């Protein structure tokens, strides 16, 4: 066999053999109707989903800057890290945010000020998140409903995560006591949803997948 061109690159002992995992008949049989199951986005999403930030040639259609020059409102920066169960920062997560403008209005169609309320950041190890952080430049949102506190919705996905996670970023200076969503969260876990002010208009919001301070995720 070793006289086949290129075959010498492969050690025959490494071939085949009993497989660690086998799910017999997977991929055959009937298909039921219903929602398409989620799957992980895997490790190699950057060139498709956040290409501009990583220098891939696909034109960028989303960025981490939601506060263009024409957008009214109080400029803020929100940054953070995603920690796995062992407390290790995740270097291949994608965080998306969706928020209302300073008046509490969502962008429902293209607006003259360019505000979309939607942004993305990949925590990749060679792009702008090389320090395994995510960072958004945006504006402080207004409350979207009477009695509710302002928040930024965050969608988290990464290699190893088979179902995306959805959370909320609240701000420490706001009146949070009457917020109906926070009220649905056990009191001892609410602090995981409140960003920490680390400077003027600058907030830190870390996401923890496990442990005593595991971030609250919502069933939406």
């Amino acid at each position: 066999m070793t006289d086949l061109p290129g075959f010498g690159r492969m050690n025959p002992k490494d071939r085949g053999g009993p497989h660690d995992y086998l799910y017999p008949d997977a991929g055959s049989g009937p298909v039921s109707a219903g929602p398409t199951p989620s799957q992980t986005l895997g490790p190699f999403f950057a060139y498709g989903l956040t290409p501009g930030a990583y220098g891939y040639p696909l034109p960028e259609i989303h960025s981490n800057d939601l506060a263009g020059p024409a957008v009214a409102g109080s400029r803020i920066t929100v940054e953070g890290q995603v920690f796995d169960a062992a407390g290790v920062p995740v270097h291949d997560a994608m965080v998306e945010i969706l928020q209302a403008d300073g008046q509490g209005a969502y962008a429902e169609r293209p607006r003259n000020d360019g505000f979309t309320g939607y942004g993305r950041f990949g925590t990749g190890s060679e792009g702008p998140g090389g320090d395994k952080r995510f960072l958004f430049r945006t504006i402080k949102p207004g409350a979207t409903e009477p009695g509710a506190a302002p928040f930024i919705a965050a969608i988290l996905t990464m290699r190893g995560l088979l179902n995306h996670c959805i959370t909320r970023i609240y701000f420490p200076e706001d009146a949070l006591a009457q917020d109906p969503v926070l009220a649905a969260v056990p009191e001892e876990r609410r602090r995981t949803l409140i960003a920490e002010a680390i400077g003027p208009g600058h907030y830190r919001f870390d996401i923890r997948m496990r442990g005593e301070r595991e971030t609250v995720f919502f069933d939406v």
Partner: protein
Amino acid sequence: MAESRSGRRWSDSPSTIFPDYKSSIQRGPGKAPISVPGWDRSLSLRPVWPQLPEGDADLTANGRVNGDPIGERILLEGGLTDEAGRPVPGALVEIWQANAAGRYIHREERHPAPLDPNFLGAGRAVSDAGGSYRFVTVKPGSYPWNNHRNAWRPAHIHFSIFGAGIAQRLITQMYFPGDPTLPYDPIFNATADAAVRNRLIARFSMEESVPNWAHCYRFDIVLSGSAATPFEEEQDHD
């Protein structure tokens, strides 16, 4: 008034921690997600997408340097519906994949298979008024990974879909019918019910294949929730 939440169909989802898929052990959340009495209107409000660059849905063209990419050209088509069967127009559909040799262009990929100078492997489309999307691409190859000894991902195409609001976010992977590695793949098999996970397998369509040009695979996608925006509103900005 807050809109009532739709909630995800966890019975139709993979296990969040599926030990055979080793990365999930450290990265899946430990606690169950919390149900809320309401969210706000962003639950069913479609974000605004920028105009996509021309030709973004043709992966055989958007990475072209000096020729066609190598591989089996395929049409990849499908329809987006909500759980009530209503079309989801205006959804952002993004795909990314390995080339025909099973190699991603991502810089951290180390599989010793050739890159294709004419293939980027990523594209985007917005679903039309009837909820349909269409890509032209090449069939990806299988590629090895380090989950366990002799681990191979079945050929697959990654999908990211953002429909009408946060409740219609979906990140998934599409597989090909008859792939011999499906019974060995922990990611595909992380969804316990065989008939549910089989929704991830595209269907070969002879009817929609184009003579002398390309096979067609259909991948119809059902987004959870039924909070589609009213169609009248779609016509304003499609």
